């Protein structure tokens, strides 16, 4: 996984609430057995016209000002619904590495960290200020610094955000958290010994 540190990038605005993972990556694209190549299908039903290939000029992310954006600013409860990790794979593959919203659905939020994506939670007033700034100046670039847990904008908005220390460290260092858990294999084995004594019926073959 790539390390996430500090970057300055275009912030794209998608002012919609309750964006579900079915919209992020539609079911017809879930049949692949690889993790790659989902970006071209991101937001498919909104992004393309009926023919499925012509970009929909009315879809916000198709605006030329938002080309190359790494930051997505969006509404409440982003990523709700299905647990499909294809959603963050598609977001990552499309080019976003940061999502700013007032809230994220639980499973999606976890899935982001496994894929080097930073989901940033801000309060409603801050989100509105960011959205207003982007609306007034499409193509504006924001700077996100994970180390200092801050987002700064040319309009003078400065946001400091919370993030769990363990997750922050994994993102900063691009760590594989399976590897981290495996460092505690002896603890897991000890636990299993106790588990066998406490719940013997679970281990009876």
């Amino acid at each position, binding site marked *: 996984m790539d390390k996430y540190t500090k970057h300055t990038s275009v912030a794209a605005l998608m002012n919609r609430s309750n964006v579900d993972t079915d*919209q992020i990556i539609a*079911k017809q694209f879930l049949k692949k057995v690889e993790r790659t190549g989902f970006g071209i299908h991101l937001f498919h039903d909104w992004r393309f016209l009926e023919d499925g290939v012509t970009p929909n000029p009315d879809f916000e992310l198709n605006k030329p000002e938002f080309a190359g954006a790494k930051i997505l600013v969006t509404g409440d409860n982003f990523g709700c*619904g299905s647990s499909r990790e294809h959603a*963050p794979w598609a977001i990552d593959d499309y080019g976003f590495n940061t999502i700013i919203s007032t809230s994220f659905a639980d499973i999606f939020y976890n899935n982001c960290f496994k894929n080097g994506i930073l989901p940033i939670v801000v309060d409603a007033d801050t989100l509105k200020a960011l959205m207003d700034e982007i609306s007034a100046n499409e193509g504006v670039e924001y700077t996100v610094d994970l180390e200092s847990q801050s987002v700064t904008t040319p309009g003078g908005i400065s946001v400091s955000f919370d993030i769990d220390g363990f997750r922050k*460290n994994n993102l900063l260092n691009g760590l594989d958290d399976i590897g981290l858990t495996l460092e*505690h*294999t002896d603890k897991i084995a000890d636990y299993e010994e106790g588990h066998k004594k406490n719940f013997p019926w679970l281990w009876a073959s």
Partner: protein
Amino acid sequence: MAKTMYEKIWDAHFVHQEPGQAPLLYIDRHLMHEVTSPQAFEGLKMAERRIRNPHSILATLDHCVPTKLSDRINLPDPIGAKQVQTMMDNCAEHGLTLYDMQSRNNGVIHVVVPEHGFVHPGMTTVCGDSHTATHGAFGALAFGIGTSEVEHVMATQCLPQSKSKTMLVKVDGKLSKYSTAKDIALAIIGKIGTAGGTGYVIEYAGEAIEALSMEGRMTLCNMAIESGARAGLVAPDEKTYAFLEGKEFAPKGDGWDQALAYWKSLPSDDGAKYDAVIELDAAEIAPQVTWGTSPEQVIPVNKSVPAPADFDDDGKSLACKSALDYMGLDAGTPMTDVEIDFVFLGSCTNSRIEDFRAAAEVAKGTTVPDRVTAIAVPGSYLVKEQAEQEGLDKVFVEAGWEWREPGCSMCLAMNGDQLKPGERCASTSNRNFEGRQGKGGRTHLVSPAMAAAAAAAGKFVDIRELEQE
């Protein structure tokens, strides 16, 4: 100190916490299907890691599988066929139990797992599927995970987890005979919203929950995720034990007695504290129907489609406007005037034998109008067999329904069963998102009896009035 059931299960599965890291939680059961697992197996292989406990895993094929018998031998979709084959290869390579399409045990993961007693009270259970919450009906801490976490559990039998907050949803009073667990689930989501449970594990309790069958409790917990909750839980009781006893993976002999003693220690202690408490009166829960594109956009069937101006919150008002556009509905239209084109009876929410009995009771002697397609998709072959033994298949077929093979089918429309743009569906599934049942398709979530009534009338019906006619 008095503990909630969630805290008891958490404490019993806490493995270790390294300073600066998240607590590691031990995982007892790992459920799998073909869509969210292939990349996890691939990751395991690339890292040269092995599966720590293959016996903790039970797998099925359900999301991609056709529900027409003729399509089940040679899958018409080559990409879906590859996914199915990959699952079979992975299970064979690692020695995992798989209920493939030829197995009598095949069906939707959250239907087949309880049928075989694979998840017990007090277990931690995960699956790369958000509806894993279903198994909370047994008093198990069951939640959906992403594919990276599927790989994590395979390799370590653990997951780094942060502790959730607890919410008690207390439903007292008696449900009318026309309302079901599905209506309770929708009424709760209508009250707290689709993000109302975010960060919480919900415990459902109260007289109306205790009165539910195990099937009903599965329906209720299944939709915990639609309120944003990590999991839903119902305390195990005599119904739980009776359901599990004798099942293939249920404890036997002395093991049963040991397990039972443990299970009885699980319900939340008197005086246990919750971070939030929500109360509903079951007697006031009418049959529900969703009108929009989020499960929180739901009303009693005798009400009319709301207008954006009915919502104080700007976001909800905007969401109402966009939902009405997508759904092709005018504000103020009585729900019982809304005509449908399709009916889907199935999904991990409502495809158990009790659901088919309830729908068949309403469908009996009716005729589905020519312009309406109605499909009945059992959750498993065991449900299908049971329904056929009871003659329910004939009731549906005589009423003009299609009687299909088991699978997820039109709940997420991955297998070829789907709506055409603009088609309107009364569906017993769990999500009415835009395009969920096919691009441009319009989904209304209802209970099985409400779906059967809609199939007969070609429009939504208040089933409370049906019987009085």
